[in-house]
């Protein structure tokens, strides 16, 4: 049995960091993730961890600090949000290409403009092609659990990992949480001893090579393979975590999908609200189900095809927009997965929702299912690119 507590999502992440006791944290504050380095620096100041805390002058430098530290041969972490994540984007690509398993906590938030500090997924989605593993949490509990699994996953495939939770909605909300004991966490996460490192006296290395056209593509193909391989690692670590805590994780979570005819595919805190909507609809005799994406990178294409191939209609919920006059990123990838697998029967629509902190209510999700019922009955999707809860 774990320890019964109540923590906000940011507190939970900082606590996970404390239990892991990483070697270096490079950080620059930005709301709503500011509390993470704030709480963690208290642990540093109190001598509860041995981490070298490096306050830097920008997020670009925060990620550069992590790259240097991880390449030197130690565990490096950071935390950020919104424009901070955008500002470190250049270095995110370097971290992934240099194959450095850095761990970055992201409390997701909208991007300007208009200026907005509230939640959506624009920041994390904006860096979805940077080569990082991206795990999304529905609750403070999942944010904590994902963080404890991050280093195991990243270090197994030599890729950096982003642990995302919804800014304010879970990052600043106090909720019940079950924490794992320190000794169990330490045993689960293990120690980091890379075979080679910049400061490895026995096995030195050179990092950050110039890759000319004759090498670059081979290098990228290998990086792509690491992301493919990450799927199995995420599953394995999720099961092992379940054996320790009773909470198992995969790439997706299916909720009441067994005989579902209408399904919503969603990520982050609103999945919880949508589950409550599913429960209401089921009580009314409707065949509603839900698929929650936990791992957006790697993208769980096979799992989603398997989950959705028998539904009559589904809605992919994007908490950001690609502004491509077509659809959001999640819909695009789900549609591509179904098409590539030859599954064209399910009718799919896309909702852009919850931008800039627009509250996502149970009633909002019920409206989505009502649309899906119509589509299932008529076989007609109509406009597939839709905005939810926007004033006409």
């Amino acid at each position: 049995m774990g320890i019964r507590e109540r923590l906000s999502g940011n507190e939970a992440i900082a606590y996970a960091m404390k239990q892991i006791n990483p070697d270096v944290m490079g950080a620059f504050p930005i709301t709503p993730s500011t509390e993470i380095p704030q709480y963690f620096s208290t642990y540093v100041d109190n001598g509860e961890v041995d981490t070298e805390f490096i306050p830097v002058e920008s997020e670009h430098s925060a990620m550069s600090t992590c790259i240097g530290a991880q390449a030197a041969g130690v565990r490096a972490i950071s935390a950020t949000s919104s424009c901070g994540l955008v500002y470190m984007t250049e270095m995110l690509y370097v971290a992934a290409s240099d194959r450095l398993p850095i761990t970055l906590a992201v409390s997701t938030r909208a991007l300007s403009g208009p200026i907005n500090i509230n939640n959506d997924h624009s920041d994390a989605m904006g860096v979805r092609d940077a080569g990082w593993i991206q795990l999304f949490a529905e609750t403070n509990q999942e944010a904590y659990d994902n963080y404890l699994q991050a280093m195991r996953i990243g270090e197994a495939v030599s890729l950096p990992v982003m642990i995302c939770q919804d800014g304010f909605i879970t990052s600043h909300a106090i909720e019940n949480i079950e924490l794992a004991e320190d000794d169990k966490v330490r045993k689960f996460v293990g120690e980091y001893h890379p075979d080679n490192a910049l400061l490895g006296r026995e096995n030195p290395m050179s990092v950050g090579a110039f890759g000319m056209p004759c090498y670059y593509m081979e290098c990228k193909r290998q990086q792509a393979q690491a992301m493919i391989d990450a799927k199995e690692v995420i599953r394995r670590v999720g099961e092992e975590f379940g054996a320790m805590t009773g909470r198992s994780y995969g790439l997706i979570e299916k909720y009441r999908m067994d005989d579902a005819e209408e399904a919503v595919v969603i990520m982050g805190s609103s999945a919880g609200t949508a589950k409550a909507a599913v429960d209401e609809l089921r009580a009314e005799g409707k065949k509603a189900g839900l698929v929650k994406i936990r791992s957006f990178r790697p993208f769980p294409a096979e799992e989603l095809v398997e989950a959705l191939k028998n539904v009559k209609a589904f809605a992919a919920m994007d908490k950001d927009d690609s502004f491509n006059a077509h659809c959001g990123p999640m819909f695009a990838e789900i549609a591509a997965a179904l098409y590539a697998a030859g599954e064209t029967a399910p009718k799919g629509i896309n909702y852009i929702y919850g931008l800039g902190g627009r509250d996502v209510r149970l009633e909002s999700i019920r409206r989505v299912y009502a649309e899906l019922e119509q589509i299932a009955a008529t076989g007609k999707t109509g406009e597939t690119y839709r905005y939810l809860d926007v004033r006409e």
Partner: protein
Amino acid sequence: MKDMVEIRWHGRGGQGAKTASLLLADAAFNTGKYVQGFPEYGPERMGAPITAYDRISTERCTVHSNIYEPDYVVVVDETLLSSVDVTAGLKADGAIVINSTKKPEELRSRLKGYQGKVCTIDAGKISVETLGKNFPNTPMLGAIVKISGVVPEKEFIQDMEGSFRHKFASRHQVIEGNIKALIRSMEEVQVG
């Protein structure tokens, strides 16, 4: 969820409404409940209207949205009555607790025809007399616990004593003052 209690707090930036909502979540958690305590974030400034929420239940609540049909509303600053629709969605079998020197019947006319219980508490006076300063959030916390019954009163006082002891370890008069403020507000809250 049948046994879920939802509470909405209205205050002004700097008055401690958010802290009070989190303390209530803490107290409910300590009696074995599932809790959510969360403020609604915006460009916080001292004096600007703010909203905070509590959900308290015996099973985990998965909903992550604001509260639109609260069982109880707490108004930490009476001046908000003229600018904020504090009774919006408030259930008729619930109650509103307002920080005011007035009696409940004097305020009912300003609550857009709200039919449920209206309660008042002079949190400013209690705060000044017990803590020496106007910190209305502690008396408001005591009043809402009394009115909602969401946490057993005795357990609540014991629990808060522990919390205050942790928070103000070296300042005994602050601990004592806060506990006195809680007890007095539970006794003095007027129900109309």
